[in-house]
């Protein structure tokens, strides 16, 4: 009896809840950490980035319009989906990052637990970051953290899954929609995890992933005028230049700082705006 032939998967972009190949028709080969061929991955273009921003803008209103309770449940369901595909994720994290099986499994476990952590934040962040303000006058005055809108993420280049989760889960948790550029050479864990958003009740377009050449795409993402904030975690040496380009439309910019892990609130605070309402009090 002959050995069964694998069914190989095509890794595509994820835009607006659909799985298109790049509109450019391009792809590029991705190798394992050991140098073996892994897959041909869609090589996204500027047009794909723009399509993803359009999708994210539309999805953001729906996502933020949902109750905080529902957003928490959707994020938690994403973790449930990931839990049931742990071994697949671990295989890919192991291949992409060159980790031993056990270390890859631990990395996946941490990533899933991180999503659970954020799932629990959706209906608390308003209370923790907002509040009532005792102004000197006949007004009820309150401040709420509201999402910045559409966030562009240049995901961690080495940490293919954990780094990706850290950059996308926080902005989504507080009500933003995200366009993420996955790690250029290790894209498959991010693509697999994002595929699971399709079975987690996320409105299509809340998390969009474009794979491809970071240096080609990042400039278009950070300069896009309908992007409100950018996370430059995976931008490396081009971070300064990208941060300058982000200034064109006064974007909020996240760049990692030493000891960030000691203050996980920082990521939750970065892509929210404090919106303050004054309402008159009278008879």
């Amino acid at each position, binding site marked *: 009896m002959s050995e069964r032939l694998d069914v190989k998967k095509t890794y595509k972009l994820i835009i607006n809840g659909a799985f298109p190949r790049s509109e450019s028709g391009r792809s590029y080969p991705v190798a394992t950490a050991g140098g073996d061929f892994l897959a041909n991955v869609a090589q996204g273009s500027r047009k794909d980035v723009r399509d993803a921003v359009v999708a994210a803008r539309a999805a953001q209103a729906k996502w933020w319009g949902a109750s905080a309770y529902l957003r928490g449940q959707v994020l938690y369901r994403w973790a449930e989906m990931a839990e049931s595909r742990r071994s697949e994720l671990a295989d890919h994290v192991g291949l992409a990052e060159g980790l031993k099986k056990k270390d890859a499994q631990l990395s996946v476990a941490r990533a899933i637990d991180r999503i659970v952590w954020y799932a629990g934040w959706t209906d608390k962040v308003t209370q923790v970051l907002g509040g009532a303000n005792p102004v000197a006058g006949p007004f009820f005055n309150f401040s709420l953290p509201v999402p910045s809108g559409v966030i562009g993420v240049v995901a961690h280049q080495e940490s293919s899954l954990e780094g990706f989760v850290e950059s996308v889960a926080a902005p989504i948790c507080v009500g933003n929609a995200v366009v993420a550029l996955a790690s250029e050479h290790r894209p498959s864990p991010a693509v697999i995890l994002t595929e699971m958003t399709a079975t987690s009740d996320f409105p299509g377009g809340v998390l969009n992933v474009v794979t491809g050449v970071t240096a080609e795409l990042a400039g278009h993402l950070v300069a896009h005028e309908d992007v409100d904030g950018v996370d430059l975690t995976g931008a490396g040496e081009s971070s300064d230049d990208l941060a300058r380009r982000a200034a064109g439309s006064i974007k909020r910019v996240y760049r990692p700082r030493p000891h960030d892990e000691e203050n*996980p609130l*920082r990521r939750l605070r970065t892509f929210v705006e404090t919106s303050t309402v004054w309402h008159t009090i009278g008879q």
Partner: protein
Amino acid sequence: MTEPSHTSPLGALAYDAAPESASIAHLAPSYGLFLDGQFTPAGSHAQFASLNPATEETLATVALASASDVDRAVVSARRAYERVWSKTTGAERAKYLFRIARLIQERSRELAVVETLDNGKPIRESRDVDVPLAAAHFFYYAGWADKLEHSGFGPHPRPLGVAGQIIPWNFPLLMAAWKLAPALAAGNTCVLKPAETTPLSALVLAEIFQQAGLPDGVVNIVTGDGTTGAALVDHPGVDKIAFTGSTAVGRMIQERVAGSAKRLTLELGGKGANIVFEDAPIDEVIEGIVDGIFFNQGHVCCAGSRLLVQESVADEVLRRLLRRVDQLRVGDPMDKNTDVGAINSAAQLERIRELAAWGEREGATRYTSACALPDKGYWFAPTVFADVAQSHRIARDEIFGPVLSVLTFRTPDEAVAKANNSKYGLACGVWSEKGSRTLWVAQRLRAGVIWANTYNKFDPTSPFGGVRESGFGREGGRQGLEAYLDV
């Protein structure tokens, strides 16, 4: 100006002139930089004049700080940070700030007069708004200085170090207070750069710091022009830049600090929508529209410069608004009955004139108050444009003057869509008696501040700041501490 500057339809019932005395200002003929606790000339001994925009007369000359003067200021702030301020307990920092608040209250009349002379704003506003709020900001943030670990930004909040702060000319003393009070409470030392046309109240504030016994170098004040500000932005010894001003300059600053470790907060321009629903109480609405756009001559980044009125009441609102605008008393800012004072500078007057001309050119209908304007000084009569389209420059560009653009809408959805059709997102107003609709609209407006049935209210406990191209970061409230903490 002793002649009444206003022709009133009230005739004999018109107010007599009631001018405040300029001598209360006790201005010196010239001022140096405030470095390391002392007034000191600029290295080049260069001075420039600060004018009274209502008379075009020189009030005093102030030192023009060069890059090397800015360097002296930063060195002084760094030394004060390392040797003194970072070793001063929060409770002691609090007491300095409480002292400063009290001294501002004690010298409030003098400060109000200085502010009105230098800025051109009505004495009623500097007396009732700018100065009391400045004192209140110091009083509010004083209390935070020893409670930072309860501020809610995560564990171990620490100061950033030396903060470079660049402020505009529209609320000179108040903006200094908004910048300095939270920075000092959080444990930073400061280099403050006042606006070129309004440096004087900050220099009186420097005297107050001396009277308060604030340690030398904790606050340094460098007067000057755009080159002074640029030197501060570029100085490698600065850990934080806080800027309030135009979006164009804010963009340039964000680009310049992008490659550095400097933290940045920006409070930039706006094109605030003031949305009036048909059920709103019209009398209050008219006063709210007037406060929204003519307060401080419209030199307000959060001014309600786009009026969005529901179609069913648009004609009545416009008719009553124009009648009210004709009653505004324009003229001598030192007169206690003046509603609208002088435009701050010739350059700003030119910009307002240019944009108003665009309003006519693009087909809007112009109404300008028939008020008499003084012969000397910089003046612009309150102006309302009707029949404005969203594509008009006067509906898109920040005019920063007493010019209102009126647009209409039919449904709440349309009101929200039009209000959000702006690159800015600083403030909006909503006028309705229906609370559920007000909150529905407030949820959908992309703006940092929303005033419901009021406008242009400020309080030290209430965070202020914008979204989108109106900038990022907040001033005021607990949230305002974040800009000056390493968290």
